[in-house]
């Protein structure tokens, strides 16, 4: 277990340490320096890529959350009336290798529905996997929901809409938030699908990073990787704290 821990930690530690190196070469230690972070902040292309990544993440998460939540609710309302096929169908996109999903969308957007590729084509792809995760998380949450609670609310004089909004929706909310966060995290990190269906001159951050890495190994990439790593760790901690708080309630 100790060896496993070392195996897991060494690459990350090395990455972070060398981002503070003063040397131009990624594996030569040239004294402590923050120059690569300064360079990073001045990089206009990266800032643009970050903006596209955030737009893509927000847009696809919004769509995936609305569609996935509605589908999970619809599936729950059927209560297993010959609908075993529905969850299986929502499970399929996750089982297909990402690269196949990417190239299939590329063929679709060049030969079937010819559009200029860019933010919207990437959104289409990201919603495909996002909606599946939201469906899975919200469905899991709804599995424990007793439908008789809605009937009880109706008996007490609530309209169907009130019963849903005041009884069922609050109970679903942690699932919706969890699914949305998952979808957002996956979208921000997603590389292969974006790489296949993006248009000329439009790059998300992962696509941009990949291009930089193909060109060579520089401390600037280390600095960028460190920033992203810290952002991810913070997001993960945040979501753990939010969930922990819910459990405490």
């Amino acid at each position, binding site marked *: 277990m100790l060896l496993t821990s070392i195996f*897991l930690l060494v690459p990350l530690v090395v990455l972070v340490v060398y981002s503070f190196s003063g040397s131009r070469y*990624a594996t030569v230690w040239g004294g402590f320096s923050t120059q690569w972070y300064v360079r990073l902040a001045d990089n206009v292309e990266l800032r643009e890529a970050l903006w596209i990544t955030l737009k893509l993440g927000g847009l696809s998460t919004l769509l995936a959350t609305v569609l996935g939540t509605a589908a999970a609710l*619809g*599936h729950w309302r059927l209560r297993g009336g010959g609908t075993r096929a529905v969850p299986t169908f929502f499970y399929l996109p996750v089982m297909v290798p*990402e690269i196949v999903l990417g190239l299939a969308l590329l*063929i679709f957007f060049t030969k079937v529905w010819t559009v200029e590729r860019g933010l919207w084509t990437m959104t289409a792809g990201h919603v495909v996997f996002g909606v599946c995760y939201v469906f899975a998380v919200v469905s899991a949450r709804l599995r424990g929901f007793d439908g008789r609670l809605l009937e009880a609310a109706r008996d007490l004089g609530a309209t169907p809409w009130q019963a849903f909004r005041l009884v069922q929706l609050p109970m679903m909310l942690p699932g919706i938030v969890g699914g949305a966060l998952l979808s957002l995290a996956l979208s921000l990190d997603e590389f292969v699908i974006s790489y296949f269906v993006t248009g000329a001159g439009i790059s998300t951050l992962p696509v941009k990073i990949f291009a930089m890495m193909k060109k060579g190994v520089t401390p600037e990439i280390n600095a960028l990787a460190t920033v992203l790593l810290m952002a991810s760790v913070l997001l993960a901690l945040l979501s753990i704290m939010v969930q922990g708080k819910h459990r405490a309630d």
Partner: protein
Amino acid sequence: MMGRSRWSWFLMLPALLWLGVFFVVPLGMTALAAFARRGEPLEWTFSMAAWAELGRGGFGVVARDPDDAAAGWRFQNEALAVGWRTFWVSVATTAGALLIGFPAALFMVRRPARWRRVLYGLIMLPLVANSLILAYAWVTLLRRDGLVEKFLRTLGVLGEDGSLGLIYTPSAVVLGMIYWYLPFMVYPVYSSLEKFDWRLMEAAADLGATAWQRLVHVLWPLALPGIMTGCLLVFVQAAGTLVFPELLGGSKTRLLGPLIHDKFLSYPENYPLGSALALALMILTTLGVWQALRVSGERKDNSVS
């Protein structure tokens, strides 16, 4: 309750439509594209050219070196050689992840709850990062004059100009992928071990089973569903990976992912051939899924009887 049912389907409709248009139709088109003619970049005319190209060279094997039998053999057919290499790299990655992940999960599940959470976080740590960044971390470690070689030189194990040639090999790709896919193995294995009733082990010990017998005949079979899920997740993803072979494999370690990528995104494009390769990849991963389901299905039958 006709009304409720109609409403329910109406709620599901937008999501189903989205998946229909942007998932089912594109996949169908990919299957068709494999039988289409190569054009600019694709023409919807029936053609078997892609498959003829895939089959070029036949499916036989030839000796790697006619004068040296020990050098082994290789496939004459390029696609088959790449597919075979992809298969073995994926199997090695799955086996490696299991070899590290199973003991790790076993160790974790036996710790007190507080410890367990820390260890669990540690194992899941790579997941919060991006696979690109982790692959890159391995590049800085393994590359020529990279940190591993520098470290060994400082120790005097490696000569001043010596190089181990670590990067741009199948092993480098496997190492990077084991690192990235380890959480996908540990999570399901850990979940199945968590439900395990450890009194069974005591019972087996009381009946005279050795530690090894207990592991093989009691723990392993009951953990098998989790193990199978883990293997499945790792194998399917490893078979289709693009990032790791591109960054750690170099031009000598061609795998299916980068080969498919080139047919679509490098000049000259060949959509039909790329689609045919994608179908081959789907068949490879489906076989993996089917095999895993069969094994875990057999287990279920056994445990019932």
